């Protein structure tokens, strides 16, 4: 059992979702999975080495991540309300149409 491979697999799933999914909410969830995979690796490393300072830094990273999530979700809702869809392709098409007009 290796936590490095586990976190790498989680990051790979997240990166796949980030590259293939066109829904804004799915993209955001993929980013969440990537950050969870990365923090999982760091938590397992620090706890196996018995370094409390690492865990303290990770708690700081968690709180920053949550604040960023809140801001991104607020922006996401605004974008979806403006364009009426959460599909990236649709939003780009609407934007291009507005530019040509």
């Amino acid at each position, binding site marked *: 059992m290796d936590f490095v491979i*586990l976190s790498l*697999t989680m990051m790979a799933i997240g990166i796949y979702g980030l590259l293939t999914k066109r829904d804004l*909410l799915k993209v955001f969830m993929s980013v969440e999975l990537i950050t969870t995979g990365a923090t999982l690796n760091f*938590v*397992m490393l620090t706890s196996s080495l018995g370094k409390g300072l690492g865990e303290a830094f990770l708690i700081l990273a968690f709180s920053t991540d949550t604040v960023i999530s809140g801001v991104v979700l607020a922006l996401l809702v605004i974008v979806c309300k403006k364009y009426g869809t959460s599909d990236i392709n649709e939003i780009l098409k609407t934007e291009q149409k507005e530019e040509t007009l």
Partner: protein
Amino acid sequence: MIFEIISTGLLISACLAIFLDEAIYSVSALACTFFFTSLLYLLNDAIYVAIFQFAVAVGTLAILFLSGEMLSTKSENKPSVNKLLILIFAGALISIPTILLSISNPSIVGSGIAFEEALWDLRGMDVVFQGLVLLTVALGTAIILYEKKRRA
């Protein structure tokens, strides 16, 4: 054995979170992912991080549920059993290398130095981060070039 079961559950729920179409079901799967992560931290004696992860996950999920409900197009399509089973099987398949393989072998890094020690104490983490930054820049450049070529 408990670690293997939890990591399998973690990867299955991560797969479900990405590949399920309905927003509410994917957010529920993401909730399972956060729960399993928190459980892994707890079992690895990182109690404070586990509690914090749990609290943060509850907040994030509450917002995600609300925004998912606001943004979804109100189509109450339940995921088909076949798709669900395929996703669970794929998640279990992906978790096999996690259970069977191990790269935390001291002989990989050098004599007497553990892989974790090299990453944390010997600044190996910096090298990894630099690699990640370079990879991100390369990926971004590739995407920009691809988009330019497509529009031309």
